[in-house]
């Protein structure tokens, strides 16, 4: 506006009404709330990254702590030796002690008494835990996706809208709200005791699968329903059977949505501690899952898992600087693993979504 007008000439000038003032205040409240949440999230990630990277990375080549990724957790022994503070893992410490005893015997001295403080799970690495978590995720997601997608197809494509089907839907929705510890107890009673599978991979798979099933069924059903009716009608009008229609002309288009839901499922399955603590998780195991006599034994043994390991090192052991490394290192690796799985699914989904657009 080049020529200034008198105030009275502008009917659109802002007026300091209460609604006007509230507008400004409200937008600030929302903004602050959002940034507060963001700050909390970032500070959690930053702490884990900062403290965890001290355990995970190394300054010299190969820049990662290979022992942390390749070894099993061990007890850490901390002691003074000839005026020097030494830290040793369980195996190393035993070798050291025997060597010193032998050396002393050769010299005709009594074996030296080494007073060491021991910290459980604070040496070695978390290789079996990563393996266990990956096995739990892959197995339970396979079970959950197979059952869940089948159930979703039935509910969305085959079932008629009867009272019974509505009841089933309601039950599924409710199941999604059941606390995970309840699933853990159910799995313990059902698979560990009743089926006599003991604490095993198999029991953990089914418990975790049942826990994510409601999410997967609901989300899969939604993505199946989002496929336009015209695709089904067009296919059926060409003489396709219902299953041909679903397989060729409905399911492929629903797949990106189903994958999105399974990303959420993966994050939950990988992260839940409660369902596996009674059914599948070992505090410590001296064998890797595939070190079994016959192949089928693999499914009937417990595994170590990342979230349960975090729980063990954080709750059962008094806090100290040595254990803290383990806690944050494990949390770091855990977040990274989940992030990697989720990223893979997102990339896969985007690829599929690009192929089917309407």
């Amino acid at each position, binding site marked *: 506006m080049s020529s200034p007008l008198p105030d009275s000439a502008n009917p659109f000038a802002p007026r300091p009404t209460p609604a006007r003032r509230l507008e400004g205040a409200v937008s600030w409240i929302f903004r602050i709330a959002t940034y507060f949440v963001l700050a909390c999230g970032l500070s959690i990630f930053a702490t884990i990254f900062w403290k965890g990277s001290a355990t995970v990375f190394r300054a010299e080549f190969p820049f990662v702590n290979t022992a942390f990724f390749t070894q099993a957790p061990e007890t850490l022994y901390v002691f003074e030796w000839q005026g020097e503070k030494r830290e040793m893992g369980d195996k190393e410490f035993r070798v050291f002690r025997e060597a010193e005893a032998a050396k002393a015997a050769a010299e005709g001295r009594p074996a030296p008494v080494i007073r060491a403080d021991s910290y459980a799970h604070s040496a070695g690495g978390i290789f079996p835990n990563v393996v266990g978590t990956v096995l739990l995720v892959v197995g339970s997601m396979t079970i959950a996706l197979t059952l869940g997608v089948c159930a979703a197809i039935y509910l969305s494509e085959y079932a008629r809208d009867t009272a019974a089907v509505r009841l089933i839907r309601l039950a599924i929705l409710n199941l999604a709200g059941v606390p995970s510890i309840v699933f853990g107890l159910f799995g313990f009673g059902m698979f560990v005791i009743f089926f006599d599978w003991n604490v095993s991979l198999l029991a953990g798979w089914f418990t975790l699968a049942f826990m994510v099933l409601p999410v997967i069924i609901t989300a899969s059903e939604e993505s199946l329903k989002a496929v336009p009716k015209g*695709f089904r009608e*067009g296919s059926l009008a*060409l003489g*396709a059977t219902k299953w041909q229609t679903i397989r*060729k002309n409905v399911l492929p288009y629903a797949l990106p949505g189903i994958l999105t839901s399974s990303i959420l499922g993966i994050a939950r399955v990988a992260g839940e501690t409660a369902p596996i603590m009674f059914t599948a998780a070992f505090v410590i195991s001296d064998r890797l899952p595939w070190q079994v006599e016959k192949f089928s034994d693999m499914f009937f043994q417990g595994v170590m898992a990342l979230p349960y390991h975090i729980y063990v090192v954080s709750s059962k052991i008094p806090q100290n600087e040595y254990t803290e490394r383990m806690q944050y290192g494990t949390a770091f690796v855990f977040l990274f693993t989940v992030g990697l799985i989720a990223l893979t699914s997102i990339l896969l989904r985007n690829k599929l979504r690009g192929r089917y657009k309407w």
Partner: protein
Amino acid sequence: MDSTATASVPRSRPLATPPASSAGAERGATLIDIKDLDFYYGAKQALFDINLQIPDKRVTAFIGPSGCGKSTLLRCLNRMNDLIDGTSVKRGAIKIRNVDIYGRDVDPIELRKRVGMVFQKSNPFPKSIYENITYGLRIQGVKNKTRLDEVVEKSLRGAALWDEVKDRLHESGLGLSGGQQQRLCIARTIAVEPEVILMDEPCSALDPIATAKVEELIHELKKQFTIIIVTHSMQQAARCSDQTAFFYMGKLIEFDATHNIFMNPKNPQTEAYVSGRFG
């Protein structure tokens, strides 16, 4: 347009077990015989006592105001209504080539291979043009590449779309214009060589030029197919159909040669509708 392409194909796969006499049914003879048909959506009756004989290789138009039952009747003819819960034919019968299509020995899957359908909203699948056309054959287990290629060209020529899309057969069918999409759906339908093509307001979403092309196509297609078209446009019915059925409130009011329905209707309700006084 190469309209003779599909004409030479022998009609195979009988619907159920047609009488021997039906093989050489002549043009214009009754193909679909609807008798005393009462149709219900749950407890609500949608069609009342419909009696209608639809001749072979002609274009029959169903007209009437919204909710008059014309689409419902159309969808009865290939049993698409089976997909809706609670629908039932409570009385009467629909016979195609003397076979009751609601009979116990009729598989709706086989019926729909013989009675194709083109929908109001064009619904090309989110696949390539080629895959759209071959969809019907592939689900029947046809894998022979040469055969599929032939059918694609023949069907696209039959639907007057070949010249427009022959260079992009492997691009998505959704990249076509609205009118082309609808002709693609027609091509997909004729690729399985049905006997009857049902068209449910095929031009309601198209502009006048695309509509004219589809109407021209209908003219060509009736040489080989029996066509039944539901339309809201009376001009369209007048332009492209041989006979017209007027429906009102679930009842068939009048069925006659199109010329008679528009120029010389016998029923006052028909007259009121075609002259634009209601509907």
